[in-house]
């Protein structure tokens, strides 16, 4: 069981992720790539600047990968790379690879990882628009009260229910 996590200055290349899948015992390799879209909420985007808090992002991403492994309960190799700094439309900002013996588990783990990263990893995006304006994208508060209950009850250490808000 291998977990590879990295953060890259600038766009991700396909081989950055694909090269991490080398397990001859795994017949299923699942790849997800997230790219910068041209339009978001009706606004024409030219670029996105990604900001991230690397030490905590690494810790949380590793935790998410371990949870994914617990969820599928089988041998798996996982690689996650996320960009930081400025990317243009079409550039890849995140790559996730999961390999497992059979394909079903690789789909499950990959989906779990991207959904959890979106809600928990300390990463932010500032969009640049064609009219010259910029805006930090609205996101998921890490001091949220309710948590989605995903996977079996024995998911490792998913406690993010800490009270961390003025309005509690």
């Amino acid at each position, binding site marked *: 069981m291998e977990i590879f996590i990295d953060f890259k200055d600038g766009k991700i290349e396909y081989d950055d992720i694909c090269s991490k899948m080398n397990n001859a015992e795994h017949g299923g390799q699942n790849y997800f790539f*997230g790219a910068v879209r041209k339009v978001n909420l009706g606004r024409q985007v030219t670029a996105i600047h*990604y*900001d*991230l*808090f690397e*030490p*905590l*992002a690494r*810790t949380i991403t590793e935790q998410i990968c371990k949870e994914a492994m617990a969820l599928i309960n089988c041998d798996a190799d996982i690689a996650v790379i*996320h960009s930081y700094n400025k990317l243009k439309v079409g550039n890849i*900002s*995140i790559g996730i690879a999961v390999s497992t013996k059979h394909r079903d588990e690789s789909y499950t783990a990959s989906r779990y990882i*991207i959904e959890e*990263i*979106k*809600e*928990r*990893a*300390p*990463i*932010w*995006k*500032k969009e640049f628009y064609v009219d010259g304006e910029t805006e*930090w*994208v*609205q*996101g*998921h*508060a*890490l*001091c949220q009260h309710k948590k989605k209950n995903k996977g079996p009850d024995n998911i490792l250490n998913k406690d*993010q229910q*800490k*009270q*961390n*808000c*003025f*309005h*509690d």
Partner: protein
Amino acid sequence: MNNIEVRLFGAFRNFTSEESITLHMEDNQTVAHIKEAILHHFKNNKQPIDIKLIEESALSTDKAILSLNDVVENNSKLAILPPVCGG
């Protein structure tokens, strides 16, 4: 003197060009007190911070997100994390 350094991320970068701010506080402050101090810091510097941004942000160390009632070690280095949207 208890100097708490708070690194800034995301939308907080709209309010200053600095990577972090330093709060001069009494000993053994809770996360709640530090968040209040962050709000006052920006107000005292006449920066139009939105209180909702601070309310919805979490404080963390390099390794873990902190709870509102946690007591922070003196002279700690923390980060303030607005609502996240990676991926």
